[in-house]
């Protein structure tokens, strides 16, 4: 008994030791009870469920005995619901909240109140614009990088000889897609892509039917079209189906941003041999690792701090170049899916 007590005392002393020396190794802080809340924009869509899955995987690895709370509002009540969940989590005195922010800066007072009680507030997927009330943002990819990825995939599919390609986007005023297309046009200036010829940009409004007919119209209008590039998960599926139905997949390929589970069949039958996306599972995993280490005082949210996030390797906290203030951890890069890895990712 005495020996047991002494052992326990020794353990307590060890636990109380300054942890800076161990800061880089997450495994050293395994097993701490840290109550954490994962808060998506809203419940009920696949990417957030995947992020939840990734976070649970990290929770298991880190052996956190306190179960992860996956709480979210309904889509109709997203802003008020997110604020309510953050406030209630603060009342409960959780250790950390991970937010995919859908409330703009309106979440700031609630997030600040949480921080005032010593709760770590980490954003993922979507940050707090002013970065007030936020410790660090776990970003999926650098949006400017997507232009290069899109250009590379187009060149890949068109072949070394290049050729004509067209863009099938979401709606004409979709901010994300417009930024990505602009980034792609910038990337295309590189002489490496000189043989690629962007002939048209059409919009399917992220509606399956409209995207389908727009893809059909493209192949009718440009008989020698080689690639359709669709930076939206709705457009790429509808476009792939259009090419398949028109039996054109030998001549024209489609690529862009898509969900592996929706693209599986088209990747295997050669209509969409490769496409890209970031993994929401990895995003949830990385967000959990980051937040756990912050809440366990094994990591400080400051520029230059490094840490190891399990299977995903080492990351560094940097200034966020996309916001005036704020810190960022950049997950990146894109995952390029093809026939070799799409099946595993679709599960």
């Amino acid at each position: 008994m005495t020996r047991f007590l002494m052992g326990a005392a020794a353990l307590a002393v060890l636990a109380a030791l300054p942890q800076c020396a161990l800061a880089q190794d997450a495994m050293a802080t395994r097993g701490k009870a840290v109550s954490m809340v994962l808060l998506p924009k809203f419940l009920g869509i696949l990417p957030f469920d995947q992020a939840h899955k990734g976070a649970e995987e990290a929770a298991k690895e880190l052996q956190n005995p306190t179960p992860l709370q996956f709480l979210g509002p309904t889509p109709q009540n997203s802003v008020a619901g997110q604020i309510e969940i953050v406030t209630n989590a603060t009342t409960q005195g959780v250790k950390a909240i991970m937010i995919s922010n859908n409330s703009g800066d309106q979440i700031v007072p609630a997030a600040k109140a949480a921080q005032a009680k010593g709760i770590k507030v980490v954003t993922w997927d979507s940050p707090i614009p002013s970065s007030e009330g936020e410790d660090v943002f776990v970003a999926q990819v650098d949006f400017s990088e997507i232009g290069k990825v899109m250009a590379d995939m187009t060149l890949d599919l068109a072949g070394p000889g290049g050729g004509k390609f067209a863009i099938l986007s979401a709606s004409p005023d979709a901010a994300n897609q417009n930024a990505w297309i602009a980034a792609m046009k910038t990337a295309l200036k590189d002489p490496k892509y000189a043989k690629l010829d962007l002939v048209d940009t059409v919009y399917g409004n992220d509606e399956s039917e409209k995207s389908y007919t727009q893809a059909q119209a493209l192949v009718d209008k440009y008989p020698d079209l080689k690639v359709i590039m669709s930076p939206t998960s709705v457009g790429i599926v509808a476009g792939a189906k259009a090419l398949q139905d028109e039996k054109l997949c030998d001549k024209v390929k489609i690529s862009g941003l898509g969900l592996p589970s929706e693209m599986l069949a088209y990747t295997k039958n050669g209509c969409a041999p490769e496409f890209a996306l970031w993994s929401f599972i990895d995003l949830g995993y990385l967000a959990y690792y980051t937040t756990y280490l912050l809440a366990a005082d094994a990591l400080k949210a400051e520029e230059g701090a490094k840490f190891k996030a399990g299977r995903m390797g080492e990351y560094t906290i940097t200034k966020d170049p996309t916001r005036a203030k704020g810190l960022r951890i950049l997950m990146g890069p894109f995952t390029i899916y093809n026939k070799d890895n799409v099946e595993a990712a679709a599960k």
Partner: protein
Amino acid sequence: MSAVGTLKSWEAMMLALLVAIIAFNSVGSPYFLSVGNFVNLFQLSIEKSIVALTMALVIIGGEIDLSVASVMGLAACVMAWTFHAGVPMPAAILAALGAGILAGLNNAFWIARVGLPSLAVTLAGLIGYRGVARILLEDRAIGGFPDWFNTIGQQALIGPLTAAIAIFFVLFIFFAIVLHGSAFGRLVYVVGSNAQAARYSGVRVGLVKAALFVGSAFVAALAGILYAARLGSVRGDMAEGFELDVITAVLLGGVSIFGGKGNLVGVGLALLVILNLRNGMGLADITGNTQNYVIGGLLILSVLIPNMWQELTNKWRGRET
């Protein structure tokens, strides 16, 4: 059983429900019984609670105002937009209240003057006022309000109470006196029970209705400003969908959707029931759709039980005579 008796038993039922919920929450969560949590519980829905007071008057008056949430959004957006354009904050707040009054006058004109049903007019308002709010702010969020403004929304002002909570209590007392202690209040009941009869007996029905809709929109605008102060920034979609929560609270409070029946005590109790229920579920990590199911179920029961009760008592009487 008399109408008064039914009402009393309704409030007794709400009170019993409230006690049960509070008891359940206290046992269920160690965080429930604290001053901070009670302030949060009010504060998280305080704007809806404020608007529910005037909504009760409108529904007792035999009408409905579906445009309240859009007026909240409109007022907040007008305030943010004018402030952003360089106007001092107090003037921007006055502009927002003015926008609320204009929206109310617009509703009142079509309902009280032209005689269109309030359901249709305020549904148009719901869409139209939201449209203006969205046009003003587009996809932007406007924040950076003066510190005193954010303090009003976010800090305790009187003891642990925030300004919005204090305003709620003041308005509650004010509207209780208006509804239950003034000549206007009696007219609201008369108009709500039978507008036709009221008109024949010389009541200026149009004026009563106009007052209700302007009052409703003015209070909604005030609530919108308080909401902006609480969140510290404004977007075009602010308060979207709040009208249903507000109407839910009023109906659960025993106010008849057909007008002429109900009182503010019942509405106050219903607000407490909903707030405590939401808070308790939140602290028990029940969110999203499950919360909606429970509160929706409660509303259905609140409509069913009085009707079934009525039918039962009718049958009972039929047997007696």
